[in-house]
């Protein structure tokens, strides 16, 4: 099964709009939403049946047993994440700051500290005989989104529906969750926005994808909102020998369609026909 990952460097560029259209066009049997911070794909793709949902345990977090605590201050001194605080002479750990490294546990002379597993998200899996859709929701303030992304992809791959193509809506940014979504995919399609910020984001995500030796292609969304910047993106791709595979116009119907819970290829619109073109070329690029 080949995996296509859709990324944008940042949200709001239309990554999910493109991903959902691709899923429809490919009649994809396997797909996933790796934007575990703010998953949106389920809002436009209707699922039948109840999903299977499972708690996701990220890094365990430290906990201090105040009955045992000798107030020696060693845990606070050694914690590099400033997660240990003392209020009214009572030691406690801020679960949002704790990274679960376990240093406090080993320096505590009276064994008052233990690492306890903590639910940090929820894995959601829709599956039928023919389709698998894996998504998740990170619990607020959890830092283990990279691990959760890896789980989302694992759950998708574990269900055999005979799919030869999987489409993955990636996470925004360039950090840990994105790196986790890139690992193991066959191709990355970057949805860029024709603006100064959009170009900067695109360059950074390309650099990141290159570190992981992923095959890359670029398309521009809302290309006609700034033709000059669109040209700049096209030139950049040419210079760096990155396949530039098309552009999607700004189309008022997109917002309306998405608000109705549909993808842009479910209705007749300019953006929809353009995305069809981008899809065809992506498939060619992926299966030369």
């Amino acid at each position: 099964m080949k995996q296509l990952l859709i990324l944008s460097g940042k949200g709001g560029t239309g990554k999910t709009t493109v991903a959902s259209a691709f899923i429809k066009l490919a009649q994809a049997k396997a797909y996933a939403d790796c934007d575990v911070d703010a998953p949106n794909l389920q809002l436009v793709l209707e699922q039948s049946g109840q999903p299977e949902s499972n708690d996701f345990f990220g890094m365990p977090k430290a906990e201090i047993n105040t009955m045992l605590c000798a107030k020696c201050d060693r845990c606070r001194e050694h914690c590099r994440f400033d997660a240990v605080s003392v209020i009214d002479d009572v030691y406690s750990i801020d679960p949002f700051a704790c990274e679960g490294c376990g240093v406090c546990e080993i320096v505590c002379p009276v064994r008052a500290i233990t690492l306890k597993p903590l639910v940090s998200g929820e894995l959601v899996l829709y599956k039928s005989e023919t389709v698998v859709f894996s998504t998740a929701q990170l619990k607020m303030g959890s830092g283990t989104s990279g691990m959760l992304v890896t789980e989302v992809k694992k759950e998708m791959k574990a269900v055999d529906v005979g799919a030869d193509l999987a489409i993955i809506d990636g996470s925004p940014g360039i950090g840990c969750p994105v790196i986790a979504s890139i690992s193991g995919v066959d191709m990355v399609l970057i949805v860029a926005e024709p603006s100064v910020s959009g170009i900067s984001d695109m360059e950074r995500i390309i650099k990141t994808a290159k570190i992981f030796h992923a095959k890359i292609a670029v398309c521009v969304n809302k290309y006609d909102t700034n033709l000059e910047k669109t040209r700049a993106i096209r030139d950049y791709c040419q210079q760096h020998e990155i396949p530039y595979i098309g552009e999607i116009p700004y189309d008022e119907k997109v917002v309306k369609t998405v608000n109705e819970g549909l993808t842009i290829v479910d209705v007749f619109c300019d953006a929809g026909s353009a995305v069809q073109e981008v899809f065809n070329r992506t498939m060619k690029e992926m299966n030369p």
Partner: protein
Amino acid sequence: MKYAVLSGKGGTGKTLVSVNLAAVAKNPIYVDCDVEEPNGHLFFKPRGIKNEAVTVKIPVVDEDLCLGCRKCVDFCKFNALASVIDKLIVFEEVCHACGGCMLLCPNNALTERDKVIGEITSGDSETVKVISGILNTGETSGIPIIKKLLAKIVNEKATVVIDCPPGSACIVMESIRDADYCILVAEPTVFGLHNLKMVYELVKLFNKPHGVVINKALKNNHLINDFCCENEITVLTEIPFDSELGQLNSNGEIAARKSAAYHDLFSTLLQTVVKEVEHETVAHS
């Protein structure tokens, strides 16, 4: 006063609002905490740039001293250490720099070195002091950079606008911890509403006074308004969907500096926010 500008996700206009808000304030500081994709400097084009590297401490092994006992390997919760044929390997990318391995080594075979993960740049743009953090590509966590950025403004009395990272993960919590007020930017789409709900939960959790700015507002769109109404959230302003603004913004221009109408819009927004904060202080004292 510190204002944090948040959105459930990128691309909703968080940077647009923060940049313009800073541009209309008096001698403000703009802090870009979106270290993965910092964009504020593209608008401000600050001058007199000063760079400062941000480092974390990564273990280095002295092979002559290593006993191959694996104490460090067994301890590391992030699998940043591996022992292969009695040789200790450090995977820097996943190391969280907790220092535990070093503490545990019975033969002092581990020491630490500084590894650069990004930098902080500061400069000036007219009267605005612009401070940005930038994470190097390939690095997994920008938290150390955000911490350093926020440490710079802890005792600031000036007006500080914090352009937060997108989402609602731990990294965002860091950014709003010291804020006096949170501005939530939302787009009137189902995605926008979904994302707004998440940051709203976050500011509630932290008990921060907050209000909503609707960006790319459409004439008859009630999605966000209804939500705000139900939850008694103040809608601070609506920024209309406007191709002039889009054009200025996509070319990296600051609308408030280029157009009188937008200067007014953001000045009014700033005044509204200042009033909201005053109101909160009265209500809570």
